[in-house]
């Protein structure tokens, strides 16, 4: 459109220039995921939506004697997203994030970012005070074969075409957390006693508007504190070392997922429709 307009004045030229800016941004996108595997990181909540308040489970916070400052879920998810992004970038992934700051973002906008990226995997990151360890959730939509059911997916239920892959991705994440006991935080060595226990993982299915609209293998990862047998908090979600273990396990899982996708692509070279293991 912009090219057809013959600029007569300076202001027209400026307008054309402005119209061409977004086009140049989009033009880079295919180049990026033509060579590198794309991972979408969605730091849940943000802006007016703070999510839950975290840190209330810490010892002392409930007694009222030494109140512990609570932190909003939205800032923990952003921290996790930023930390995981740099780990993934160092491992050769192209990372697309839904937000990089404390901004409002609705479910459709998140899905839109994910669906433009043609991603190998999409991770929606949450944090909570309830339960223990890491909760991995896959959409509760019934799986739908995209190949038989036409080319286009309904926006609200786009994830239905990817549920089978999302379940596989969840299973890869599960293994990564189980294996994180032995080699996950290799190199630190100082807190061997604290780091010995595995991070408990639970898997579930649920209906979440953002993830349900994502056309990529997608999971929600909800980070909860680690609790002992007495259900008291041993490690809180705000613990930096705990967060390190989690993002390292997630990065390891995504590397495994990329390897599986490459192997699949090599055995079925005909299917060029993106990295679909």
């Amino acid at each position: 459109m912009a090219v057809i307009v013959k600029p007569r004045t300076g202001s027209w030229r400026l307008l054309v220039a402005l119209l061409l800016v977004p086009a140049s941004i989009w033009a880079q996108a295919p180049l990026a995921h033509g060579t590198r595997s794309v991972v979408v990181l969605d730091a849940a909540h943000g802006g007016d939506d703070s999510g839950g308040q975290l840190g209330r489970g810490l010892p002392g916070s409930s007694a009222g004697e030494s109140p512990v400052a609570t932190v909003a879920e939205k800032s923990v998810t952003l921290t996790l997203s930023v930390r995981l992004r740099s780990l993934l970038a160092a491992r050769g992934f192209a990372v697309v994030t839904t937000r990089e700051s404390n901004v409002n973002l609705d479910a459709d906008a998140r899905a839109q970012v994910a669906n433009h990226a043609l991603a190998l995997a999409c991770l929606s990151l949450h944090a909570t005070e309830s339960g223990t360890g890491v909760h991995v959730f896959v959409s509760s939509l019934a799986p739908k074969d995209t190949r038989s059911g036409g080319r286009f997916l309904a926006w609200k239920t786009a994830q239905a075409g990817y549920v089978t892959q999302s379940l596989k991705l969840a299973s890869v994440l599960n293994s990564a957390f189980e294996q994180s006991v032995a080699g996950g935080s290799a190199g630190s060595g100082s807190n061997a006693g604290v780091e010995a226990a595995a991070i408990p993982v639970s898997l579930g299915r649920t209906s979440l508007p953002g993830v349900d609209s994502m056309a990529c293998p997608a999971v929600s990862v909800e980070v909860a504190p680690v609790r002992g047998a007495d259900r008291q908090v041993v490690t809180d979600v705000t613990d930096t070392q705990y967060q390190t273990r989690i993002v390292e396990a997630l990065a390891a899982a995504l590397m495994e997922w990329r390897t599986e996708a490459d192997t699949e692509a090599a055995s079925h070279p005909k299917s060029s429709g993106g990295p679909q293991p």
Partner: protein
Amino acid sequence: MIPRYQKIVFIGLLVVSIVMAVVLVRLRERAHDQLLKGEDLAPTSAPAVAPAEAATLLVANDMDGTLVEVKTSLPLPKDAGARARALLEKLFEIYAAAGAMHPVAGVARPVQQVFLLTVPEGAATNKNGSSTAAGMLAVVNLSGEFADGHPAGIAAESLTVESICATLHANLPQIAQVRFLVNGEVRKTLAGHADLTRTYLTSEIPSTAVTGTQPAGEARGVVQP
């Protein structure tokens, strides 16, 4: 010009119509108040003479994300809607107790009402496009206080929703679908995560009635290698 008797008739009719209007408005207001207070008329606990009945509650466990079957007995009203409400209030009593496996702050009146409606077969389609089975639709009207005090989290909120649906279905098997209201209105989520705008099918709730402990990964039967 206008005959005197016509004036009298006119004034008389005017007075009568004003009185009738006032009476109608009053009646309407009274009916509205009674509707709002409807839950108060339905007995929430049976009279002392009513024997306690056996009931099955599906109680959430945050530690492994399961629903645990708990047999109990409590006095239950005859009316199905009031019965459903009594069951859910018993369930929430467990969540509000000290040391609960799925702690949710106790409030005075967590469930305002439960309405039961008959749904003809295939009348509604769920999100997956398959038509729903015949049965009752339970509309659970939660109090705003309960929802506002609910812990935030995908797991915590989903477990509350699932335990409500499973408990209703276990005791009133005719309930096939569950919808939620908060203070009589549709609310997007329970506490920021669990979707309260959709219809939940009781057949979709994972039947995870466990009595012992299970490995966390298998607890909800999701991993399909």
